[in-house]
């Protein structure tokens, strides 16, 4: 019921047993402490447990004790009032709290035990074992928990259900979410080398499962167990409410609410106190679970490319840019040449004090192909993203970016649309994810064509023409295909064709061949060259592979640790590299040393 099987998509890296584990625990704890609602939830929960254990001993009234005060509203003697028989509500609620916590805890233990064992076994052995367990999950999921539990509850014992029987029944019905979760994670861990290593070293199945696999799923189990605790509280109280859970003369929170059904308007305390207590328990459990989840699986800060930077962000950026400009030597960017298309001056992209790009200057002339080369993490992609206004919100981006004379920082989403696609086109690294899986190629072309004022027949003709130019065979039928029906190379050529629609002034290609097979690379590079020639656009070509640069670029900028270390035209770069790092990079590109300079 709670959001506890968002699934095996969030698999954390496996950790080895030993000291790193304790360090990880400390890290998780630190992260959890920063999650204020999670901490509050856990605190409330622990306090409630403490109260349930300690308070009944000191409270003068017993939950079944009948006092002469009938139907009293809350008063100093009875802080929560009394019911029609004169029983003290606080004493009853304390008893209910005990029952709920005890039963929910047992349910969680039972359900997690079944779920973990079946999940690990299914994931580890796979094949028919997995199929059997998954059928069992399907089966259990067809049974409404309350119905089965009510039936079993009614037959387990005639004189009311013991809490342990109730816990067993509910636990046996609630294990499915845990087992799915564990299975998913184990399936992904099973193939990892460290499991093979353990097997080679002679570890038995049991040992591998419970020493090597279960500890690595522990995160997920803890989160799922926490959230299940809340669900169990609701299930138990619901069952008791219907009369199939805890039976009088014993009491539980659900039973108290059931007894107070007709008293909402006349003796409201009887109804509100037990109900609000259930809400409080479940709410604190859920927040604690949420906090734990975030602590175990740190979420990256939310990305939303549809927003306009907020005023606070704009102000911070303006202030930082101004202060940076004061320290820069005056006139360092120099007078602009008339054919300059892109002029980046003093660009810094800063992630909480760690600059990804530092004080970068770069300009691109019309029709010029500039290659930005560097290892991963050198800041080259971040440079490209700042050119299209898509730097992640966690980063502070300062400096000036001019495109065709217009200042590009802090544009609103709508202002950006005048440039994106129309004047600046971008090709992303991985063509398998950059196309919309739910739309046909034709529909994705049509979306862009509409912006160019084309629709219907003329749009299709233009799309066919573009696909022809990127050497797609039978373009008309390709338009009816979905991206997943095409090969990686074809998808990337689609992306290139999409980029050509508006005859842009600048094409940014961010590692367009990295995700592709080497055999397809040449094809895609050729397509890119054609696209550039046809549109006459300038291009910023980003790569870590110097070998690709020689064939396409006019000028090369080498980037390292956020800084451009060397910038030169392509011939002097290859013939006489100035910077140590450039030489190293060249040495790594094997087939460039044809002139005998290979070290």
């Amino acid at each position, binding site marked *: *019921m*709670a*959001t506890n099987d*968002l699934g095996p998509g969030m698999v954390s890296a496996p950790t080895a047993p030993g000291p790193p584990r304790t360090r990880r625990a400390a890290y998780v704890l630190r992260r959890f402490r920063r999650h204020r609602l999670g901490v509050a939830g856990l605190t409330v929960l622990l306090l409630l447990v403490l109260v349930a254990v300690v308070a009944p001993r000191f409270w003068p009234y017993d939950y079944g004790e009948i006092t002469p005060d009938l139907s009293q509203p809350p008063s100093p003697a009875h802080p929560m009032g009394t019911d029609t028989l004169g029983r003290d509500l606080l004493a009853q609620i304390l008893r209910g709290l005990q029952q709920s916590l005890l039963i929910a805890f047992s349910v969680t233990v039972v359900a997690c035990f079944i779920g973990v064992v079946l999940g690990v076994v299914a994931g580890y052995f796979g094949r028919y074992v997995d199929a059997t367990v998954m059928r069992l999950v*399907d*089966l259990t*999921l*067809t*049974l*409404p*928990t*309350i*119905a*089965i539990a*009510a039936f*079993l509850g*009614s*037959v387990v014992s005639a004189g009311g259900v013991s809490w342990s029987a109730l816990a067993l029944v509910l636990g046996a019905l609630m294990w499915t979410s845990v087992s799915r979760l564990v299975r998913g994670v184990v399936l992904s861990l099973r193939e990892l080398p460290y499991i093979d290593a353990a097997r080679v070293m002679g570890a038995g199945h049991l040992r591998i499962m419970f020493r090597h696999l279960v500890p690595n799923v522990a995160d997920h189990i803890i989160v799922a167990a926490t959230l299940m605790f809340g669900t169990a509280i*609701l299930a138990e*109280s*619901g069952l008791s409410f*219907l009369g199939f859970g805890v039976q009088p003369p014993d009491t539980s929170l*659900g039973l108290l609410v059931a007894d107070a*059904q007709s008293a*909402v*308007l006349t003796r409201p305390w009887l109804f509100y106190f037990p*109900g609000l207590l*259930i809400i*409080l328990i*479940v*709410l604190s459990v859920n927040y604690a679970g949420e906090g734990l989840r975030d602590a175990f699986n740190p979420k990256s800060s*939310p*990305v*939303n*490319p*549809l927003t306009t930077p907020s005023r606070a962000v704009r102000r911070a950026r303006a202030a930082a840019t101004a202060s940076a400009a004061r320290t820069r030597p005056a006139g360092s960017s120099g007078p602009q040449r008339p054919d300059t298309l892109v002029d980046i001056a003093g660009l810094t992209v800063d992630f909480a004090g760690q600059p990804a790009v530092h004080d970068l200057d770069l300009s691109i002339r019309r029709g010029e192909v500039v290659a930005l080369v560097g290892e991963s993490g050198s800041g080259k992609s971040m440079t490209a993203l700042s050119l*299209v206004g*898509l730097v992640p919100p966690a980063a502070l981006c300062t400096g000036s970016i001019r495109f065709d004379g217009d200042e590009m920082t802090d544009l609103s*989403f*709508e202002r950006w*649309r005048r*440039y*994106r*696609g*129309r004047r600046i086109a971008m090709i*992303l690294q991985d063509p398998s*994810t*950059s*196309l*919309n899986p*739910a*739309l046909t190629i034709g529909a994705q072309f049509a*979306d*862009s064509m509409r*912006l160019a004022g084309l629709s219907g027949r003329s749009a299709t003709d233009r799309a066919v023409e573009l696909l022809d130019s990127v050497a797609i065979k039978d373009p008309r039928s390709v338009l009816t295909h*979905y991206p*997943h*029906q095409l090969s990686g190379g074809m998808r990337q050529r689609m*992306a290139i064709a*999409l980029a050509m629609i508006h005859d842009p002034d600048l094409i940014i290609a961010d590692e367009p061949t990295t995700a592709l097979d080497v055999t397809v690379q040449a094809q895609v590079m050729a397509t890119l060259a054609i696209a550039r020639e046809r549109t006459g656009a300038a291009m910023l070509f980003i790569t870590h592979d110097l070998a690709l640069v020689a064939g396409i670029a006019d000028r090369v900028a080498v980037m390292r640790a956020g800084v451009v270390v060397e910038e030169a035209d392509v011939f002097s770069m290859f013939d006489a590299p100035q910077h140590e790092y450039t030489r190293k990079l060249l040495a790594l590109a094997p087939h460039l040393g044809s002139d005998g300079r290979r070290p």
Partner: protein
Amino acid sequence: MGRLIVRRLASAVGVLVLSSMVIFLVISVSGDPLAELRDRQPPVPDSVIEAEEHRLGLDQPLVQRYITWITGLFQGDFGPSTTATRDIGAELTSRLGVTLRLVVVAIVLALVLAMLAGTVSALRQRRWPDVVLTPAAFVLLALPSFWLAVLLKQWGIGFNNLFGYQVFATVGASSVPPPDGVIAAVLDAMAHLMLPTIVLALVHFATWSRYQRTAVVESLASDHVRFAVLKGLSRRRIVRSYVVRPALIPIITIVALDLPVLFSGAIITETVFQWRGMGGFLLESITLRDTNAVLAWLLVAATAVVLFNLIADLLYAVADPRVRYGD
């Protein structure tokens, strides 16, 4: 597509057959429908008990009983009830309609609201509607549905008393006798439907809107949305075709998986509002130890779940071409 439907259908039938066996086994092994008769004081003569055992088929071996039961099902016979006058099949059909009305309206309402709220919440993370919707969903998740049901019912009664006019109907699925005229009957049904539907829908609205929010947040961070932004598409177009459409797939699964929970919720809601629906049928049957009636109920619930899962699978194929063309 055709092959996909056939395959899913076959697997659905398989699950259903298995589930009928499990249900039958669990119910027959754990409950003795004649326990009450046997315990009666003064003792009932053995001949009466034996006759009753024979009538209910309890003197047969378990496998034989299952076969009798399942063949009976195909002829629309749910087996004899412990109460000799009760016709399980006839009662079930009339009550099924009542419950379906509640469940279907609640699903549609909860789903539509959850998708709207989840999407808006995700698009405006940590800003105006999200800062209200997110904590609200957390509180709703913690609300026991029975408590909410009682609360709304009593508030409805209080409201009616205050204004001296019956705005909310708080008892039953329709007035007894139902008002004349189609329009009056529909209005009457709606007045009765309002509060129970709100209860059932709110609880699931909370869960589903959280899932939808997560799905849209993930979708927003995906490469194809970034690419759509880079193509210069309008915000509305991107949200509709590039953000929300791919995010539909997870929510379909969640709704299908949540169905048994929904039925459990319906039992509670019907009890509080005194509807003569499936929930009441189950609870009465349990109290009467009418095993065949409980079996019939569970089978109907299992069929509904399997059916909805099948629909979900097909919707999946509609929403995701990768499924449709069998990758």
